[in-house]
């Protein structure tokens, strides 16, 4: 009789041991996991990157019909001062049914730019100058018939011949799938500068 009592005393309580092992493991893994998340977080873009992310462009030197292309977040952004004649070609391209996505239904631009001009102000086009086909930089070809006889003015990609109108909308027959992307931007209150702030999250470049 006495021997069995001693036996049970000697034998560990496996239920308790298993419970303690599980509890220690859960808390331990939770602690390690939390620290691991913080550590991966430390590799996110820093505040210095975020501060350098916005680019301010002075609009006054850009004369009607001219463009500037500035580096923004290691990408070229084109800013075009479009003349009324250039703006008129946008409607013409729509009426001739040249465009793949004339109403800009694919969210390649912020909602406030979902219009014919793909812009906050009709004359100012602010756009990431990257062809949605394979990431080349399209040429700016504003003159009529400068690429083909029917050319109304727009962008022509030197790599695989994708064509876009003066709002960056892709023309049928191009290998490119989408209109070129428009980033998020704001004008200063006096309208003299534009600040390109961040990529529109739904848009894709190429």
């Amino acid at each position, binding site marked *: 009789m006495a021997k069995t009592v001693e036996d049970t005393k000697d034998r560990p309580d496996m239920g308790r041991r298993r419970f303690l092992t599980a509890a*220690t493991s859960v808390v331990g893994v939770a602690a390690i996991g939390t620290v691991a998340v*913080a*550590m991966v*977080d*430390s*590799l*996110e873009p*820093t*505040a*210095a990157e975020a501060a350098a992310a916005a680019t301010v462009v002075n609009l006054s030197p850009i004369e009607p019909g001219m463009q500037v292309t500035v580096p923004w977040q290691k990408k070229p952004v084109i800013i075009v001062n479009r003349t009324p004649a250039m703006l008129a070609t946008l409607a013409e391209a729509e009426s001739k049914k040249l465009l793949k996505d004339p109403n800009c239904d694919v969210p390649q631009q912020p909602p406030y730019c979902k219009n014919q001009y793909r812009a906050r102000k009709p004359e100012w086009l602010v756009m990431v100058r990257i062809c949605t086909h394979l990431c080349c930089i399209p040429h700016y070809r504003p003159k009529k018939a400068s690429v083909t006889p029917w050319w109304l003015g727009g962008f022509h990609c030197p790599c695989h011949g994708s064509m876009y109108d003066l709002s960056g909308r892709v023309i049928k027959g191009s290998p490119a799938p989408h209109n070129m992307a428009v980033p998020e931007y704001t004008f200063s209150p006096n309208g003299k500068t534009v600040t390109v702030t961040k990529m529109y999250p739904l848009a894709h470049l190429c």
Partner: protein
Amino acid sequence: MSKFGDWLNERFPAREMMREHMTEYYAPKNFNILYYTGSLLLLMIVLQLVSGFLLMAHYVPTSKDAFNSVQGIMYDTKWGWLIRYMHVDGVSLIFILLYLHMGRGLLYGSYRKPRELLWIIGYVIYIMMMGEAFFGYILPFGNLSYWAGQVITSIIHAVPLIGPGLTTLARGGPGVGTATLERFLALHAVLWFMIIAALIVLHILALHQVGSNNPDGIEIKKLKGPDGHPLDGIPFHPYYTVKDLFGVGVWLTIFAAIILYAPTMHGVFLERTTFFRANPMVGLPDVTPPWYLAPYYAMLRAVPNKYYGIALMFLAIVLPFFLPWLDRNPVRSSRYRPVYRIMILVMGITFFTLAWVGEQPPLPKYFLIERLGAAIYIGFYFLLPIISSIEPTKKVPERVRS
């Protein structure tokens, strides 16, 4: 076991390694608190690797941008303060553990036959760690980094014949600059670290070859039970793994409390002069090393002659290598050697007094303490062979005391 387990073990000795180093590695059952230091050191080294990798992901090794990039980690990187304080405070904690670990070896005679090689590998790791800490110390390029770099590289200058060449080689130019930062980063993060990691593997392999010593200094392998296992030994896994897990819990709580509430430890773990940008035109009022190197620095200053001072410092660093042969007493542990025990105590107090005095400004009023400290430190090693052969010892028991 599982099918995957069988598949794996036909190709890789996982089970065998587990048995050899964990479930059938028999460690004495009377380990005390000092025996947590080994596993904690291993943990801290891994944490230094992780935090160091993350720091390096943001660090720029140029004399112009190094300071800014480190401050950028503190101000602009998400959780940047966590990874930097982990790395910086981790160094001081590693040295606290190293001194406890080595002090334990002294107390219980763990350097004695057959553990001479174990002691020597461990001591090489300690010296390598001092170098690793020094390289890391230069990288943030605060003014302390700059002047510490100047002073230490000029110590190399005193090496006979090749000294000047070595100094230029270490700096990569006439002074401490971008080239120095680049090569120190490469040494700190790649070569030196890999050598330390390899030495740690050797240290553990050597330990498992001879078996762990214990506070009584008794060889547990002498008394084996009918099952062939030492009577006073218990399997490392699960008994010491769960015990070490508890130690890890306590230690990480202390570590986290330091990072969260006293990350600079009032200027001891992260000195105030590191917050000035490196400036070759403005010297520091007094260049003092971090606390863990200060004992040697105090001995360097104790001698009023550049070459003899450096020689004394090197002697102090080299002497512990000979400890296994300097101690001639048949008894290992200081538990049964009252005289040796007092010597260790005096030595420990001397070492930390030297650390304290090494942090003080170099004023004549400290000379006496520095010289006395240096004399006791060196004297310990010279007196040990004599005292250990004549000292009285107590009777060592057959079995370990639980």
